């Protein structure tokens, strides 16, 4: 039950989420974070984030699942690893961000209209289906979900790329020969199906 004053009640928090965080890559020693803020200080994107990396960890530990999974932070992570290098407790924050991203997509929760998760999903779909991404198709499909009007803005750029041979003129998507093999590889290495079994 949410409070009108913004005070957070214990019932609103998710203990399972906090425990889950310690089981994913990068989260093994998340409990040892001393909240120093070196990660936020080193992070080149922290100024743009709604919650800084340090704050995300503080929130995760206590079970603030909603806030964390719907934050922009995890999608703004540039994977530069500056945080992981500077963390005095040796926490691999970047890998942890990836785990949060996976969970956010799995639960269908991400900030509305935020391009990064949409692009990630469309890319994954293309790769899973055909073993390769087709750039033109990726841009089109992603923007159809985000903001179709944006496609008009991209048109001049697309034309230039076409003329310069940087983009394939044929609308046929690229693919590999052994598509079933790729799918099998993804499943074996811990794709959604495999992970689901493991968690059970």
């Amino acid at each position, binding site marked *: 039950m949410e409070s009108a004053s913004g005070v957070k009640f214990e019932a609103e928090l998710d203990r399972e989420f906090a425990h889950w965080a310690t089981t994913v890559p990068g989260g093994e020693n998340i409990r040892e974070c001393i909240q120093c803020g070196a990660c*936020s200080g080193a992070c080149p994107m922290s100024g743009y984030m709604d919650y800084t990396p340090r704050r995300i960890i503080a929130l995760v530990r206590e079970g603030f699942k909603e806030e964390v999974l719907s934050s922009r932070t995890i999608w703004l992570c540039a994977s530069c690893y500056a945080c992981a290098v500077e963390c005095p407790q040796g926490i691999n924050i970047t890998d942890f961000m990836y785990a949060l991203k996976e969970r956010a997509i799995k639960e269908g929760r991400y900030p509305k209209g935020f391009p990064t998760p949409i692009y990630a999903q469309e890319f994954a779909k293309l790769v899973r289906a055909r073993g390769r991404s087709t750039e033109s198709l990726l841009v089109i499909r992603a923007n159809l979900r985000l903001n179709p009007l944006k496609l008009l803005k991209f048109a001049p750029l697309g034309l230039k790329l076409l003329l310069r041979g940087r983009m394939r003129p044929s609308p046929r998507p690229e693919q590999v020969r052994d598509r079933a093999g790729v799918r099998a590889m993804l499943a074996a290495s811990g794709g959604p199906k495999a992970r689901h079994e493991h968690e059970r």
Partner: protein
Amino acid sequence: MNPTEMEAATVNGSKSRSGSSEPRIGVYICHCGANIAQMVDVPEVVEFAKTLPKVVVAREYKFMCSDPGQELIKQDVRELGLNRVVVASCSPLMHELTFRRALEEAGENPFYFQMANIREHVSWVSLDGGMATAKAKALVAAAVRRVALHEPLERKRVPVNPNVLVVGGGIAGIHAALTLADSGKRVYLVEREPSIGGHMAKFDKTFPTLDCAACILTPKMTAVRAHPNIELLTYSEVEAVEGFVGNFRVKVRKKARYVDEEKCTGCGECVQVCPVEHPSEFDEGLAKRKAIFRPFPQAVPNVFLISRLGTPPCQAACPIHQNAQGYITLVREGKFKEALEVILRDNPLPSVCGRVCTHPCTAACTRGKVDEPLHIPGLKRFVLDFVGDEYELPRPSPELEKDERIAIVGSGPAGLMCAYELRQRGYKPVIFEALPVAGGMLAVGIPSFRLPREVLKREIGKIEALGVELRLNTPIGREVTLEDLRKQYKAVFIAIGAHLERRLNIPGEDLPGVFGGVEFLRAVSLGGKVELGRRVLVIGGGNSAIDAARTALRLGAEEVRIVYRRTKAEMPASPEEVEEAEREGVKLEFLAAPKRFLGDGRVERVECLRMELGEPDESGRRRPIPIPGSEFVLPCDSVIVTIGQIPDLASLGEARLRGLGLETTSQGTLTVDPVTLQTNLPGVFAGGDCVTGPDVVVTAMAAGRKAAISIDRYLSGLDMYEGRELEGPFESKIKVDIEGVPRKPRVPLPSLEPARRRGFEEVHTGYTEELAKEEAARCLDCAICCDCRLCATVCEPKAIDYQMKDQELEVEVGSIILATGFKAFDPRKIPHLGYGRYPNVLTALEFERMVNSAGPTGGKVLLKDGREPKSVGIIHCVGSRDKRFHPYCSRVCCMYSLKFAHLVKERTNAEVYNFYIDLRAFGKGYEEFYSRVLGEGVHLIRGNVGEVSDVALTPEEEGKLILTVEDTLAGVVRRIPVDMVILATGLEPQPDAEEIRRLFNISCSREGWFLERHPKLAPVSTFTDGIFLAGACQGPKDIPDAISQAGAAAAEALALIDRGFVELEPNTAYIDEALCSGCKTCIALCPFSAISFDREKGVSVINEALCKGCGTCVAACPSGAAQQNLFTDQQIYTEIEGVLVDAQGAL
């Protein structure tokens, strides 16, 4: 006290009450509150114990170590007649002593006791109650079986030496020393640095009281110096420790200060004249000190010392060991007269060397690794030019005057040097010179445009002025022979050089116009006429060839060409001489050799063969191989052949030489002993080119000196071989760190333009005063002290002694306190904080020196460019609380960072920002101090700084250092520009902590701090009895805690001393004579040499006083004769059986 003379004292009441009758065992299982009981089923173990053989009673209790617990044991001993006790509880390292004492108080032998460790080894480490209980049972079974075999033993008493050694003179060491000394004990305080005071002496104010550190420290330091019971050994280190508690023998090395501590009054006159500066270690490199220095004005002892690292590379490489660093440093300071004195110490021909020496010193010069080596000969020559004629060579002291006359054949550099060195030793040398001029090759080989004749004459004249007789035009071998010299003089030194031409031996060599090089140069030098043509060829590639070629030019030749059979790279001539020759227009023809000279009445052309380079020959250079059929002709009207020289032994009368039996080599040189330079004829020595073949001036001079030393020893009847290793060039041991030295190339030596080089005036005009100083300033001061010896000239008490050696002392003490302190973390390991890159990023200790009123800025807070900072950032936790460096908290940094904040606020108007993770203000007055600092408006920002950078994103950030940090409390990421950054560097163990701990046989913890016996119960003692810890060497701590610990350590040492004796654990080994076969296996195994062999009985015997109880001999004894008390084979076997009491599958 010699351990073998120790008396063994028996402890009363240690005899067994019940005699050696049947064991009656009492077993006690402790709950230890819940510590044991919550994992081990104690009642079950008790029941099990009752079933064990010889167990009379088995009980359980909550806390066996408590009084009622111990009373339980005592009661059972009295009432049930127990004579063995097993307690299953904590570790024996914890309470073995407690229970042994209880047993003793009950009237039983304390060694009829065994403990089973079921807490540290069972309950605390298990998760499975069933298995833990099983394990506990097994350990109890083992203890019960073992204790039945225990013997009644007696403890030995050893007296304790009341002296104490305190290692480390920081605040902890000082306090411990004073406490012990006040109680009447003799204390040896050993400190590695030249002064006591440690890190505290560097601080300005201390937190939280803001007491001035020096004000509270210096009275204690003075008290140490004045205390009659303290022997202060500064600038000293412990080298070896032997013995054991109560009886340590410690070797201490007192390093040489080169200043007598007793005589030095601390006046400081020496510092004024010392020309060498070096970064001050005490000031953390922020200021400079001199080579002779005192770490800080209040140093205790208040005496100076000199940093003399040894022989610098230049001096070591010089065959006559000229102190180049010495005179160059003095030139830099403008002290030219003093520079001359340094030069004249080792070299009576400095103007000559400064012009023509091949300078091996330059090749060794450390500056060469940075950019270019110093122009050492140029600087030497400058000094001589500056002083001109107004100097005298050092005179020999009148007491040394002797009557012996020595004959020297030859007045070249070898002969002149030998004469000079002999004269300095009081002898009367007489030089016989065949030519009408003195100087040898200096006068008739090297042209005057390289070495002006007036300069040479002047230098030789000064040698003569000392009392050296010079007879020109007096060759040896005709009217005066070698045998005459041997009869008339006490010794003879042959230094006739190599003045005989080496011939090509090809057709046409005798044609007019073909000159020998030696003949040609000599003729020119003596002023004779030479019929030289216009087109001159010079055959050869050495310095003589270059000299001949350049001379030919000056005699009017239009074209001079040098013909050499190899290439430029293999030319033996000095590269700078070749360069000068080329500048003057000499042409060089390579890979060509003359086949024959052709001409009618005079040489007109030379037929040459082309050469190619083949395999290397003995000199290491590639052999020239003639190419058949490659003849070509070079036209000329004069040829000068300079292909080498050999000694003119025939002039000495070859037949006579053979008659005398003087040995020669196949190359035509004289054979001598390489160490003494004596020939095979006693009293006849030889050196220089006549021994080595053509070589350079300075090598000949070195030979002259060597011969003089040999002659002196020969005539004094002393050993001629001892201690002569350092004559001649060697490699300096000094390594200089050249990182960060800014590059500045050599100042070129001014010389005449080639166009202006007409006649024979000197080509190199030499440095001016400014140029000389500029070049001298490039010297890196390799040895620090340059041995100029100016300090001794101004020291009135005559306290300076350059010959001082390290001293070795041995002290005997009964206990040792280690107070060796800490080292500050080096923030270069964290590159993103910018230390070492940005000049205004400081470490904590650097800032301490800055704010110290006696420091480099007089206490002002200043940026490197002298401005006052407008904003300062202080970053906490640098190197601490960080798994990458040190996971621990360094305890003092938060408080000293607040102190810094306060001091900056006090002295400037700057904004101050402290960046912390957690603020630790745990001590008395600390939280109040924090509050005060907050009240002063210091920004306390909770956030670990991500980066220190000078890249500005906005105009306000220009020229500043920007700190990017998340202000976690305000919840926003900030960029904060500051002028100065102070890094709160953490504390870490001294870098040699491992070696120190080995010396004293103690352990280090995982982080490298010395290991205390128990972190809670015994923080100042170690596992080695008699060795205590005080201060930061045990772990980071602040001053009050360090002093507390020091007092505690002193108290524990006093407890030991006042008791007067130590009781040794009776776990020594012994040998059953009856079983010993005399195989002697054990003897070599004992590291304490406690076992000796009794020849009469044919058995080994163990000296109980020396035995430490390791048991190595016992394990090795093949007959089981050697056994260890408390750890006999039978006892351990039965313990093994007990520990496996529940094992199935026993064989």
